[in-house]
């Protein structure tokens, strides 16, 4: 898969309470959740993010609660993929399960600056910084996860599996 867009940069340990505060968890309406995406770190994020743009963060992104509302809010806000030095594990599996592309890269996380335009090519295993012309290598998903990702998420992957 390929994604490209302008980046929004965040720091370390961005937790799910910041991504989507608990006060908004009394709904499953995705568009509604998107309106409050990242509200407690950056109040202006939901209004300024454009479809296809990319979140870049430091380590342990998505730590805290298991709320799937967090990757859902990010996906529904139009963000095409999230790059971070590392992800908290429940956020990681939720993203794989709902089909939000997430990419671990220490180098990209360190070197990409807020507002840089980048392109991501998961098949080639590379992120390009279109501003600085730098390239950062990325690892492919392990085959087990790749199967879920290519099916478009866990539910589709189970459906496919049971048809076989």
């Amino acid at each position, binding site marked *: 898969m390929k994604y490209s867009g302008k980046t929004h940069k965040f720091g370390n340990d961005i937790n799910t309470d910041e991504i989507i505060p608990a006060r908004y968890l009394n709904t499953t309406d995705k568009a509604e959740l998107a309106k409050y995406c990242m509200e407690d770190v950056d109040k202006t994020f939901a209004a300024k993010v454009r479809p296809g743009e990319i979140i870049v963060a430091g380590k342990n992104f998505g730590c805290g609660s*298991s709320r799937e509302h967090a990757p859902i809010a990010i996906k529904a806000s139009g963000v095409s993929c999230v790059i971070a030095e590392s992800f908290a594990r429940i956020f990681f599996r939720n993203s794989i399960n709902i089909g939000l592309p997430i990419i671990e890269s220490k180098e990209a996380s360190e070197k990409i600056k807020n507002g840089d335009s980048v392109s991501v090519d998961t098949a080639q295993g590379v992120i390009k910084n279109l501003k600085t012309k730098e390239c950062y290598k990325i690892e492919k998903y392990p085959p087990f996860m790749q199967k879920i990702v290519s099916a478009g998420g*866990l539910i589709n992957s189970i459906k496919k599996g049971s048809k076989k």
Partner: protein
Amino acid sequence: MGHTITEKILLKHTNLKEIHPGEFINARVDICLGNDITAPFAFEEFDKLGVKKVFDKNRVVLVPDHFAPAKDMKSANQCKKLAEFAKKYSIKNYFEIGKMGVEHALLPEVGLVLPGDLVVGADSHTCTYGALGAFSSGVGSTDLAAAMATGECWLKVPESIKFIFTGKMNKWIGGKDLILHTIGNIGVDGALYKAMEFCGPTIEGLPIDDRLTMCNMAIEAGGKSGIIAPDKTTAKYVKSIKDRRRASLGKYYSSDEDAKYSEVIEYDARKIEPVVACPNLPSNVKPASELKDVSVDQVVIGSCTNGRISDMRIAAKLLRGKKVKSSTRLIVIPATQKVYLECVNEGLAKIFIEAGGVFSTPTCGPCLGGHMGILAEGEKAISTTNRNFVGRMGHPASGVYLSNPAVAAASAIKGRIAHPEEVL
């Protein structure tokens, strides 16, 4: 080469001959769990799978606890979805208010989790049950949907970190201080993706309630699970549960002597004093005695971390015959109906109320900034809960300090963070 308790439990829940850290498995689950925040999403995904029934109506657990009793109309709708799903699929373990409690305090208490079990829950603090020698881990709503339909969950076999605690604990410390000390030491991602195995003489002497508190907060170090090998204390606890909903007494696993750990860390419990995690990370840990000039507007005693009867008893011991400082609000929330009733029968409820505190029906409430005690801009609270992220208990410019129930109760009396010795 030997295996850890975590690897052994996971292996038993697959059809494989052996498993190793780093490998992906589809594991059979004994119990899967959802609440009023995470289950409604899971139901939507479950419907997409087009299956007619859940894999086992006795092994799906639904607990409306976060915004329940429903705090507003939207939350009421969420709770209603749980009741409807439970009815439609004849879910045995749906806990309506009046029977419910904070899920991670409730499940062990009613005997739904046993040693050797594999439990997944769409709630990050599902890791609590490791205290009984089970593998348990938080997952998402889609995982819950898949588990409800198939009885399986995909997992990556984690590496384990071994934490050895030696030495006798000081008077006013409990499981909460041991785990806060640990998180303060390794950081909020110190155990990322890993199983945290707690052992050593201190742990062997630790009551189940304190073990539950420790494993509860494994996630706060990024851990996939926390686990303590089941022993005599565990067996006694499991046998004592009258309301046991599962026939067996569980399976007892332990780690081999030559099991492989990614790290082994030792702590001397004698050197640990009552500690407090300061805003805005659970790893921001300082001795309570160094924080005496921090005034608090609110004190919360409750949650899946420290809302059990032993926590209530400790808090009551300090509050007996004393008054909550006039500048401070005290909110006591027993974690389950059983704990609530015990508080009434033992006269603890009276102590809290006479001290000038609020004594509430079980709910997660303020722990996640839901209801029942939200903080205003600039306010500070000390709480026996497990998270103190930005805005966790209310306004983004409020602050939460995490502590054990003794420190929290002492702070309620003083109106500032206090060491229990200052009041008793």
